[in-house]
């Protein structure tokens, strides 16, 4: 095979040698195609697998860990929550609407493939700046050669608009509510937006399905949409850096059809109830190739199919094209021999294709025929478990900006003005412009929708509810990948706890640059280490996820950005908590202590134009104690609201508690203890493990906090239309809620 062909397939010469060794001969072009997609970074996790193995994946509630289409965790009453997060970064840059839409479609399919009904979607989105404002520019980005000017802002706005419309366009039509997530703006995401979608579903534990081709002689069905030439080599595209001309890769992005997916969902859930189906897997990245080889590999069997029987949208498609197509809304399922008619009857009811295209065989090979002519014959294992595994060289991540002492920055003249500027920063500002485009109430389960720390959805037929949050912090990750990853885990768990939920499982989406660069690989290794340590300490298993590498454009990598999705359980749905203050006169209390943590903070970026210093040091013990205290208070129904103090610090958190939903809300007079820190640090420090709660029973909250060893101070009371913040009794901020609200709504204004 010549080098040009190998390059086109994203295969290295040594990888080709390995293919020949597995095959015992030279592969033909179709076979080479199968290897190229299955051995792509996207499908094989070849750079990350050895490190991912170190993550904690077990726990008393875990029903399904990594390795299947999604993870599953027991929630009692014979039910399990099925969830996973996945990236669609590369396609969303090339074609924002369809890239994001098919990202949502793909993750939804992963959930209902398990037999679960999807009940909620969340998204973590990261874009380059959408305004030309100086707030988005920092010395540290400029030093890395990442500039943000008007031209990028226009382009980023177009990407943002397309991605948001695509997520809404798919999720709304499909009928699964988009209930939460995050939207972050940093110059490093210029040309490399991050679109991470998480889906959550509910299933009867005994009704969980797996992607296994069980039982030699059973029938392999192709169901759903027809196969076209779209998305061929999508997985390979997603495993390379971007450079000039990346937009020309548009044909590798698929086109989504949410209607087809909705009908497919209903038909699949109906057919899974019959007992005729033994295994099912969706066709996502690497399409038919991935589903056939993985289903065989998991069950220790093989699959033979004839691609002549695959429903096609176009004529003259070769075996190569059919096997590598990433057309959307398709599933592969294995049904018991003799029960084919039951399967076909249900798909027929829904006007969908269900074509028997092959059978399960015993000899662990994937054989592809075209009208009876053998086109490919490959050992399953070579495509899946025996894919290359790299222990890529890595170096300890070094970052001069992180070593800088940022403790001496000059405090701004007016802390009230600084607070307004931070509230107006697009990352902090109200995201209603985004989530108003998402149907967040369909399925009538949404108890707490977008805009709070975590979304809360009830589980019908039980008293329970789930709190869900997705979080990450790229700046922290860039300054210290290991600490940044720990902080991301803690932030997601803390948000779930703020809603009254006990974290029971997590999924991760690791967005990094090119792993062939030792410094990027070092970031990945350290981040995985951090996630592992935090998850172990907090008792939250990782049940699956996704790795997105090569997030670079013109050689400049994004911030190492691990995004963590956490699911929490509320035994009593009526105990769900929101961010906003509820009643005048309620006592406002701070759980946790404030330290000198402005490294990597929003304050340092927006007010001082720097991304530098060390991110906060997380104490996993303090974090754990905070959860215990919070959950005891929540379960005793003592709290009227809860909001964690993180991005933007206490001042931003107090203002956000005051805004009721998207309205101006109520302020208050609050006195913060300085603990020897300067007022600007007290207001904007991002020390983790802190929570602001409002209550009418402050003494009981104090008592519970004390019992768990969590510092607790009464800051003041809710009321009035001003926010006054004192530090050690001295007024440092005194602003109308109206002014703060205007600043907070500035993103919506800028985009409308």
């Amino acid at each position: 095979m010549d080098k040009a062909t190998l390059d086109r397939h994203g295969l290295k010469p040594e990888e080709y040698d390995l293919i020949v060794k597995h095959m015992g001969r030279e592969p033909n072009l179709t076979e080479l195609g199968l290897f190229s997609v299955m051995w792509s970074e996207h499908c094989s996790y070849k750079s990350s697998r050895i490190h991912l193995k170190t993550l904690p994946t077990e726990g008393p509630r875990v029903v399904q860990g990594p390795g299947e289409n999604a993870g599953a965790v027991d929630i009692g009453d014979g039910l399990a929550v099925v969830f996973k997060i996945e990236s669609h970064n590369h396609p969303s840059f090339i074609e924002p609407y369809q890239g994001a839409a098919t990202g949502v479609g793909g993750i939804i399919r992963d959930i209902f493939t398990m037999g679960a009904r999807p009940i909620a979607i969340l998204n973590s989105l990261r874009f380059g700046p959408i305004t030309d404002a100086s707030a988005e520019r920092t010395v540290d980005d400029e030093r890395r050669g990442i500039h943000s000017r008007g031209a990028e802002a226009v382009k980023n706005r177009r990407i943002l608009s397309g991605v948001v419309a695509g997520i809404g366009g798919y999720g709304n039509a499909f009928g699964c509510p988009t209930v939460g997530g995050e939207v972050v703006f940093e110059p490093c995401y210029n040309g490399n937006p991050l679109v991470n979608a998480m889906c959550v579903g509910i299933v009867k534990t005994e009704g969980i399905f797996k992607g296994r081709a069980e039982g030699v002689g059973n029938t392999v069905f192709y169901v759903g949409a027809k196969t076209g030439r779209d998305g061929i080599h999508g997985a390979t595209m997603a495993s390379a850096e971007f450079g000039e001309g990346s937009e020309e890769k548009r044909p590798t992005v698929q086109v989504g059809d949410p209607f087809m997916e909705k009908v497919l969902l209903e038909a699949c859930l109906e057919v899974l109830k019959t007992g005729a189906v033994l295994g099912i897997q969706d066709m996502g990245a690497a399409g038919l190739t991935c589903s056939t080889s993985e289903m065989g590999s998991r069950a220790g069997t093989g699959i033979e199919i004839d691609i002549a029987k695959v429903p096609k949208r176009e004529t003259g498609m070769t075996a190569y094209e059919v096997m590598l197509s990433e057309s959307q809304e398709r599933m592969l399922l294995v049904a018991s021999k003799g029960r084919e008619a039951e399967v076909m009857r249900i798909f027929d009811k829904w006007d969908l294709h269900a074509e028997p295209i092959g059978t399960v065989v015993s000899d662990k090979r994937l054989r592809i025929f075209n009208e009876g002519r053998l086109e490919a014959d490959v050992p399953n294992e070579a495509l899946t478990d025996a894919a290359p595994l790299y222990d890529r060289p890595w170096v300890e991540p070094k970052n001069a900006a992180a070593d800088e002492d940022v403790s001496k920055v000059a405090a701004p003249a007016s802390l009230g003005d600084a607070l307004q500027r931070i509230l107006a920063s697009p990352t902090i500002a109200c995201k209603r412009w985004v989530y108003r485009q998402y149907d967040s109430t369909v399925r009538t389960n949404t108890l707490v929708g977008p805009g709070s720390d975590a979304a809360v959805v009830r589980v019908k037929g039980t008293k329970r509810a789930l709190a869900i949050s997705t979080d990450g912090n790229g700046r922290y990750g860039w300054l210290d990948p290991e600490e940044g990853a720990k902080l991301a885990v803690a932030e997601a768990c803390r948000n779930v706890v703020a809603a009254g939920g006990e974290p029971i499982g997590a999924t991760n989406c690791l967005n990094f640059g090119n792993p062939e660069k030792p410094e990027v690989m070092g970031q990945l290794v350290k981040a995985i280490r951090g996630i592992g340590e935090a998850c172990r300490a907090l008792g939250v298993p990782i049940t699956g996820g996704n790795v997105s590498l090569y997030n670079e454009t013109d050689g400049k990598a994004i911030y190492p950005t691990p995004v963590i999705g956490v699911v929490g359980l509320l035994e009593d749905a009526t105990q769900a908590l929101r961010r906003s203050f509820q009643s005048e006169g309620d006592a406002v209390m701070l759980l946790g202590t404030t330290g000198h943590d402005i490294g990597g903070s929003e304050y340092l970026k927006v007010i001082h134009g720097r991304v530098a210093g060390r991110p906060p040091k997380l104490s996993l013990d303090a974090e754990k104690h905070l959860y215990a205290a919070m959950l005891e208070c929540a379960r005793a129904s003592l709290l009227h609201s809860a909001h964690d103090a993180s991005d933007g610090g206490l001042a931003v958190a107090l203002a956000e508690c005051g805004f009721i939903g998207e309205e101006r809300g109520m302020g208050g007079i609050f006195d913060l203890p300085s603990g020897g820190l300067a007022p600007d640090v007290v207001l904007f420090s991002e020390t983790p493990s802190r929570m602001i709660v409002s209550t009418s029973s402050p003494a009981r909250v104090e008592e519970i906090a004390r019992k768990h060893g969590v510092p607790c101070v009464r800051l003041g009371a809710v009321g009035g239309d001003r926010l006054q913040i004192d530090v050690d009794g001295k007024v440092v901020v005194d602003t109308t809620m109206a002014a703060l609200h205007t600043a907070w709504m500035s993103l919506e204004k800028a985009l409308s």
Partner: protein
Amino acid sequence: MASVGVVIFPGSNCDHDTYHVVKHVCGQQAKFIWHKDSDLSGLDAVILPGGFSYGDYLRTGAIAKFSPVMGAVAEFAKKGGPVLGICNGFQILQEAGLLPGAMLRNRSVKFLSQPVNIRVERNDTAATAGLRVGEVLTMPIAHGEGNFYMPDAELDELESKGQVVFRYTDIGGGLDDAANVNGSARAIAGVCSPGRNVVGLMPHPERASEPELGSADGRRIMEALIRTVVHA
């Protein structure tokens, strides 16, 4: 007890929600009707739920009107049977000619998902019997095409015949352009047939039928429909 049919078109996605409210919140008998069926016998009322029937491809509701069930729904309505269309169900009833007007894209040209306030304009319809004219109900909307349109002359006629059932208002019931979020002509959120037994509205009463979801106002519409049936 009323027996209420909830029609499932391919792409309906509020069918389960509507069924849930009829059965578990209002305590009535609920029955799913597959769009290929055309037997509505034994039903006291029919609801066309929200969603994206046939993906709303071509035009909202344009393909669903050809489903076999729609002939039966027209027949049911002709005999005076109460029919409620919610969101996409409303659009389908418009396409089928059972309700007046057409839907344009929202004036923002964006999908809108948010709570709105609607004022009850008539209490002599199948879905508002027993409500007070002028009272304001809060419930969510979630649509991209809810901008009600009719030529001015037809709007005048619609008004004069008392077929405007709900209007978008502020929380106090006042007309306000900002409250008319999708830009509907004369802030119309819901209308009825000349016989007042077919009612359509864009907001989702079934999503506001339990207090824990933020509002239980929508339950009053669902109960009005049931009341109509039980008293009929």
